[in-house]
């Protein structure tokens, strides 16, 4: 990626990370659409021999030879039996029955996580810079599990199974599938086994935001990653005949629009279809759009598809207007014709002009790449949001990372829009999604793993979470694009990843497989359900009071309704108030120090106390416990309060978000 290394401070801290040695022993496994091995991001210059721990392979197949792997791309496998069992044999005229990426998504995610540095990368001159993965010296192994028809759980499980055999250290999965219980969810099942083997599993949170309860991959042994913006935009202004200008974004490159203003029409008025305003295929009347700029409403079909529809009908350009579903979130696309995307407010004003002026005209002005945009990051509107619908006692997402307008490697088999009619070929593409934020965290986890090879997946995640930030440099809280207001822990989890601080977190909240088994007991899972996840008989001890809220997680979700119902926690109360206690244990991973606690919570309805309020550590790996007591007064259902607990020794700040729900 370009810009994200600078945005995350990796460029300023090269000496902090052990790039030259131990990180090169870390192997990132990426389950996705495969890989384009010819990408310069897989250049292995300067890398030593493949780690001796590696047990994997580079499989041959359609358009793919085992010789395509090298010291960077050390493994490539494909899993198609489940796919083919449902949809028939892979049509090798349309997709490669091999690890070859015919889609682009897998090359984008794998290069984001562990790609080598490539100078002068860009998409048509946009986002120019040196592109690099988060862990440039880590090794990459790709497992192709997603095909044109989707990603099937039998294939995903087979890939995870093999990746464990292969000895990967980090697994990156930018995919999801609904919100079933953990013992029914193949990704959760596979991730449990991976966690047991010391593999950190990083998954995308999903793109179903800004709706609440929209998260995927919420098992507590998974690191769940939401998406934020960078300080980079690609402005393209709409200039109207009435003199008004509106800002939008675009990655269009090609023939310019004429210098004069062009006739401008609303797609809804150039169609006989009730959905013509969406610029669905075949809905525009060519005579009404020819030579004109067409305004299309966002939604239903792909954004780039709308541009193709306008172009096909003879339109000269397109303005893509957000509706309420997307608000002010602007996602830039490499459209096939001059086009720009505008937010809902601008879109409504432009439509008002279009519908009131007898001879509306417009033009689009492309401004290229702008960096230093503030405030940033913003939580992306599409990023899925909590609360966690499976286990509300576990706060998810865990963290956010860059996921909007991310430049990374791309497949040579498909154009930047992914449309069949797009004959352009690019080495890098700019796309958005929690698919893009997930591999950022996967790569950063690989960096941490290189620095701290002995740390468990939970300790690595804890370091990333407790050092994440929730305020800008000016002290103001991170904003949510969807609302235009400060984001909450249900949007950003512990905050935005801050890898430089994560390297030296001071304290970590550790967890091992027994903690997770206790968590399953607290969920009242049956022996069979536990065996499905744990692959062994495990009997919950009837004398133990298992607690969901005491899982040693680096965040605090306090669903009072669940607590009152006695769902695995320790709740008590008097008339009008509920008291809930959470216990945590922190492990010192720094020098001897004394940490003092501070609590901030913006509500008169909840009182928070921490006991003890000071923890002294005399040596590394020493553990200390503390208890947080939440005393909540009555509030209407669906009320929320948010806050933060911070432990500090003056050098480190170990932060945990709080989300209280009535």
């Amino acid at each position, binding site marked *: 990626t370009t810009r994200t290394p600078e945005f995350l401070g990796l460029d300023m801290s090269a000496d902090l990370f052990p790039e030259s040695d131990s990180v090169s022993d870390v192997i990132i496994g990426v389950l996705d659409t495969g890989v384009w091995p010819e990408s310069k991001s897989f250049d292995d210059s300067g890398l030593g021999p493949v780690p001796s721990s590696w047990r994997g392979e580079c499989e041959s197949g359609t358009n793919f030879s085992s010789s395509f792997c090298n010291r960077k791309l050390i493994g490539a496998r494909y899993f198609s*039996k489940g796919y083919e069992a449902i949809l028939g044999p892979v049509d090798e005229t349309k997709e490669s029955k091999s690890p070859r990426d015919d889609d682009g998504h897998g090359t984008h995610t794998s290069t984001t996580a562990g790609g080598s540095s490539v100078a002068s990368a860009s998409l048509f001159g946009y986002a120019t810079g040196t592109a690099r993965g988060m862990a440039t010296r880590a090794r990459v192994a790709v497992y192709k599990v997603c095909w044109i028809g989707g990603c099937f759980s039998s294939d995903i499980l087979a890939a995870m199974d093999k990746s464990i055999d292969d000895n990967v250290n980090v697994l990156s999965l*930018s995919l*999801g599938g609904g919100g079933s219980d953990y013992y029914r969810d193949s990704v959760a*099942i596979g991730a449990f086994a991976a966690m047991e083997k010391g593999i950190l599993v990083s998954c*995308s949170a999903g793109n179903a935001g800004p709706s609440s309860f929209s998260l995927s991959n919420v098992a507590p042994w998974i690191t769940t990653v939401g998406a934020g913006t960078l300080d980079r935009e690609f402005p393209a202004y709409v200039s109207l005949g009435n003199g008004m200008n509106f800002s939008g974004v675009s990655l269009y490159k090609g023939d310019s629009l004429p210098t004069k203003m062009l006739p401008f029409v609303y797609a809804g008025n150039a169609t006989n279809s009730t959905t013509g305003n969406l610029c669905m295929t075949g809905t525009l009347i060519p005579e009404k759009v020819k030579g004109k700029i067409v305004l299309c409403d966002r939604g239903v079909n792909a954004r780039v598809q709308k541009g193709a529809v306008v172009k096909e009908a003879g339109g000269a350009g397109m303005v893509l207007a957000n509706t309420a579903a997307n608000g002010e979130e602007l996602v830039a696309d490499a459209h096939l014709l001059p086009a720009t995307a505008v937010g809902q407010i601008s879109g409504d004003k432009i439509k008002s002009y279009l519908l009131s002026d007898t001879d509306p005209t417009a033009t689009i002005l492309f401004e290229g790449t702008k960096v230093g945009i503030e405030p940033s990051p913003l939580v992306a509107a599409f990023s899925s949001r909590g609360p966690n619908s499976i286990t509300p006692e576990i706060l998810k997402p865990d963290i956010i990372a860059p996921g909007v307008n991310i430049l990374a490697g791309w497949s040579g088999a498909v154009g930047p829009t992914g449309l069949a009619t797009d004959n352009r070929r690019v080495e890098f593409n700019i796309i958005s999604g929690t698919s893009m934020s997930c591999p950022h965290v996967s790569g950063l986890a690989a960096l941490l793993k290189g620095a701290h090879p002995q740390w468990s997946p939970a300790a690595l995640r804890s370091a990333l979470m407790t050092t994440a930030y929730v305020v800008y440099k000016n002290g103001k809280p991170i904003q949510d694009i969807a609302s235009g207001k400060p984001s909450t822990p249900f949007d950003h989890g512990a905050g935005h990843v801050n890898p430089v601080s994560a390297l030296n977190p001071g304290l970590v909240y550790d967890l091992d497989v027994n903690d997770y088994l206790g968590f399953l007991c607290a969920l009242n899972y049956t022996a069979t359900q536990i065996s499905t996840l744990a*692959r062994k008989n495990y009997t919950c001890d009837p004398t133990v009071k298992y607690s969901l809220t005491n899982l040693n997680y680096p965040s605090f979700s306090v669903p009072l309704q669940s607590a009152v119902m006695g769902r695995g926690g320790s709740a008590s109360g008097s008339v009008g108030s509920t008291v809930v206690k959470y216990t945590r244990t922190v492990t010192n991973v720094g020098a001897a120090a004394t940490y003092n606690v501070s609590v901030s919570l913006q509500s008169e309805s909840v009182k928070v106390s921490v006991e003890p309020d000071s923890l002294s550590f005399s040596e590394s790996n020493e553990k200390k416990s503390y208890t947080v007591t939440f005393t909540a007064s009555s509030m209407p259902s669906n009320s929320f309060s948010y806050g933060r607990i911070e432990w500090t020794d003056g050098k480190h700040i170990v932060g945990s978000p709080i989300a209280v729900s009535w």
Partner: protein
Amino acid sequence: ASVEDTHVLKKTYIVHMAKSQMPASFDDHTHWYDSSLKSVSDSAQMLYTYANVLHGFSARLTAEEARSIEDRPGVLTVLEEVKYELH
């Protein structure tokens, strides 16, 4: 049609086995999986066997066969294939 579907239409299922319950007559768990599968369907083909993420296998089965295999000794649970989407 639904009765017919139960007997004819095949879907992919993930069959989780309790490895510790493998009868002593088997010396290899894959043979045990195969035997369990063949006991409900002569024609069913195994797609994958799993060793790390779960003990068991995936196979194409009718709904009736899936219900039958659930009752076989050592079978923990039988889950229908789920389609996941890229994010």
